[in-house]
């Protein structure tokens, strides 16, 4: 993936052009003020250079109006940057509902990527052109950061929780993938590539390769392997609530609060089951901390998610 010498990065996502536009606005503001200051200093430096040791320049009193002018104009220019930057930022956190969900798990020093259809990749991420993609990310150890310069996107991957990121690629090709948060010895080797493919080509890629069991199928196997199904069944005296149709809906807890069943809640319930016990059940579930990996949790989550749609059918 030798790109050759460049002075400006490629634009390969819907966001990239927008970020660059804002960037150029900031560059313009910066160049204007830098040149203004340098020019004035140069001008005064030459024009008012000391001609004799005993000359005494006239005193110029401070000028409130001038102070206000050069406070308020920069303030307004920066407020434009603030509003513009904030709008883009919030947009980039609002994936549409049809986004393709891909899971990412960081580990010293590699990226493990899991597609919903079951494909797994190490340090490579294949995505289709022109379709919104949402990444749900976590890490097994320290903080990493998932960074794709050509998409102008970066998000830290934090242990103990999920972070998300969303993009839509606009140009086929291969792009750098970096870890941007220092994570130990081989931090600079925790790199890879993002491959953007035409949708047909992407489908092709999906159907090739090995082990193409969909994620929820792998998840279902894990669900049985850990014997989750012995308690979480739809029977009157089951020790745990049935998980059919729960995903994406609120559930009542024992203390009367409600919590939304999402990836974060499922993850917490697997690792720290008694933190938020559903109403009507005893806090008897053992923790699976140390037994199930972050990838395994994602697979089980995918299975539970699939139960939600099954239930509604």
């Amino acid at each position, binding site marked *: 993936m030798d790109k050759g010498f460049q002075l400006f990065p490629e634009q390969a996502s819907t966001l990239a052009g927008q970020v660059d536009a804002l960037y150029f606005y900031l560059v313009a503001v910066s160049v204007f003020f830098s040149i203004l200051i340098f020019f004035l200093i140069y001008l005064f430096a030459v024009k008012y250079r000391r001609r004799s040791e005993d000359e005494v320049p006239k005193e110029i009193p401070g000028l409130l109006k001038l102070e206000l002018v050069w406070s308020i104009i920069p303030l307004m220019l920066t407020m434009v940057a603030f509003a513009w930057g904030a709008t883009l930022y919030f947009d980039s956190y609002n994936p549409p509902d049809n986004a393709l969900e891909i899971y990412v798990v960081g580990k010293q020093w590699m990226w493990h990527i899991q597609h919903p259809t079951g494909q797994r990749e190490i340090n490579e991420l294949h995505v289709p052109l022109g379709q919104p993609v949402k990444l749900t990310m976590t890490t097994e150890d320290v903080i990493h950061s998932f960074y794709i310069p050509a998409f102008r996107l970066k998000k830290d991957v934090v242990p103990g929780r999920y972070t998300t990121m969303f993009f839509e690629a606009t140009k086929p090709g291969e792009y750098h993938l970096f870890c941007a948060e220092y994570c130990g010895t081989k931090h600079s080797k925790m790199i890879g590539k993002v491959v953007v493919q035409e949708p047909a080509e992407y489908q092709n890629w999906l159907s090739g390769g090995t082990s193409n069991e969909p994620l929820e199928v792998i998840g279902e196997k894990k669900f049985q392997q850990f014997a989750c199904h012995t308690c979480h069944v739809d029977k009157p005296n089951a020790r745990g609530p049935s998980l059919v149709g729960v995903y994406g809906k609120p559930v009542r807890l024992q*203390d009367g609060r409600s919590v939304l069943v999402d990836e974060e809640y499922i993850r917490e319930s697997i690792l*720290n089951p*008694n*933190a938020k016990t559903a109403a009507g059940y005893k*806090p008897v579930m053992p923790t699976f901390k140390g037994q199930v990996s972050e990838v395994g949790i994602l697979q089980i989550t995918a299975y539970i998610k699939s139960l939600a749609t099954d239930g509604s059918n």
Partner: protein
Amino acid sequence: MASQPHTLQHHFEDLEQQFESSSLGMWTFLVTEILFFGGLFTGYLVYRTRFPEAFHLGSSLLDVQLGAVNTAVLICSSLTMALAVYWAQKGDKNKIVLFLSLTIALGAVFLGIKAVEYSHKFHHHLLPGNGFTFEGPFSDQVRIFISFYFTMTGMHAFHMIIGIGLMIYLIVRARQGWYSSEYNTPVEMVGLYWHFVDIVWIYLFPLLYLIGRH
């Protein structure tokens, strides 16, 4: 030089300026202490909002009686400290020594009770770190509470030990006759420090011992 007070340092104009400077300096130092403990209180607040049940559970493992007795002991020591400063202002050397000694004694009682509490906790494997075991729900989060308990009270106890050291110094100097009704700034400054340590405990007591008791 050793046995004589040099009341006014060379760079001050008068005692008033010297006292005002010391007083402002001490208050500034206490402000840094507020933020030093503030870091711990921030961590406490974050985790208490995140794991309320575990914090209530953790708190119930602490001994309210010992905590309350210790609060009273510390308040007594603040009183004796205030009286030591009072007699320093009046210039009564013997009373200064008496009340400073009482303050030290009360501080020692506090630390003794603290040590008893610590040994109880250690006995039940409620300790900050890898030896921690707790049979019950939320054991990881209770562990975080216990870590806060030890870190916060430990840091507080460390400040008390420093305070006791300072008071021993004051007693030595007071016996040498350094302090008079004109010059008693060091006594007053150590007093400020000791009262501050008391205030930290005034917050630690309800935040650690008294949550979720009902």
